[in-house]
């Protein structure tokens, strides 16, 4: 039986670490990834439809996240949050962005990016070489240029020239049709990566101040991470906050509460 996670671990340790963390947090996300992957491999997935669904969800999710941040900023000035309470709220917001919103994009993108190549293009590369004598890098270059972001956005025919020229020389017409299908599917995968890229650029002005706030509170409570952790992306900072900082703060907060309670009594 195909081992999705083992394959992922081998092909992309970074994404695998993200999935490991998320797996402990959101079980249904794992099931979602498996469904996407299985549907894709069985040719049951309408890539375009799935892409539109994920894009729409990401957009809506970020609007909600922006609202949450504005609310947090506004109420913080008026209320007297304890460090623990404030950090919990920041953590909830970041988790919303990186689990509910961004991760579905990452799943869709990562599943297609990694699984797509290994299980669809690999055989095609060999077949194209055996039957048409085309070097695999020449083929991949033509594929990337035919499906490039610029081509998708501006439909510049020049960037598809290499693939058009290759296909015109194919002697096996059935193979040519399969290549065209792969070009179409890979275009959607590229659109997904570009969507992820655009979303990330859009989100940066939102997540950077949230991250600054998390760091500020961590410094204040003397749990600022080591230097090498500072530049880690959120999917490493989040586990540190959730598994190390918050339990420590909670323990201190509850022991203080009970000390005060018993002292009064």
């Amino acid at each position: 039986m195909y081992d999705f996670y083992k394959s992922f671990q081998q092909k992309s340790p970074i994404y695998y670490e993200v999935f490991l963390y998320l797996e402990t947090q959101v079980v249904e996300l794992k099931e979602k990834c498996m469904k996407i992957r299985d549907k894709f491999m069985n040719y049951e997935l309408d890539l375009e439809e799935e892409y539109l669904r994920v894009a729409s969800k990401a957009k809506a999710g970020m609007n909600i996240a922006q609202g949450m941040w504005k609310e947090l900023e506004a109420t913080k000035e008026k209320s007297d949050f304890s460090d623990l309470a404030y950090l919990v709220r920041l953590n909830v917001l970041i988790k919303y962005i990186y689990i509910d919103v961004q991760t579905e994009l990452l799943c869709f993108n990562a599943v297609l990016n990694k699984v797509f190549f290994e299980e669809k293009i690999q055989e095609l590369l060999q077949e194209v070489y055996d039957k048409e004598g085309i070097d695999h890098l020449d083929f991949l270059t033509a594929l990337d240029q035919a499906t490039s972001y610029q081509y998708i956005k501006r439909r510049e025919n020049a960037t598809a020239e290499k693939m058009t020229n290759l296909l015109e020389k194919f002697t096996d017409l059935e193979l040519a049709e399969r290549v065209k299908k792969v070009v179409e599917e890979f275009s959607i995968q590229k659109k997904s990566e570009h969507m992820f890229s655009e979303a990330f650029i859009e989100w940066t002005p939102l997540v950077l101040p949230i991250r600054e706030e998390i760091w500020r509170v961590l410094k204040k409570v003397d749990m600022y991470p080591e230097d090498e952790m500072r530049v880690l992306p959120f999917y490493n900072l989040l586990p540190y906050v959730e598994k190390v900082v918050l339990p420590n703060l909670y323990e201190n907060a509850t022991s203080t509460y009970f000390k005060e309670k018993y002292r009064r009594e």
Partner: protein
Amino acid sequence: MNVIKGLGASKGIAKGKALIFEEGNDRILVEGDEEKYILVAEYIPPYIAELDKRISGIIVEESSLLCHAACIAREIGIPCVTGVEECYTTLVNKEITIDGSKGEVYYV
């Protein structure tokens, strides 16, 4: 001259100074002169969609012909070598030549 073997992912030959990519940067910024750089990274995350014109080649540790680094290198027509272990520590401050067809990295 030292040589490291990797997987050639995008054809061509390029020379430049190593530019180590750091996760957490929103952009790859190359300030100052017109010097050519070779981008060196553990991997290039998918939110990096465009590169500074002074980046003439890419080297990544991630070993895949269809990784994001390889795809953008082929799109813009610059050489790329993948599967170079610990390149982001070995190649710091080095002058590099890469051959994307052979999958070889040369440095002094």
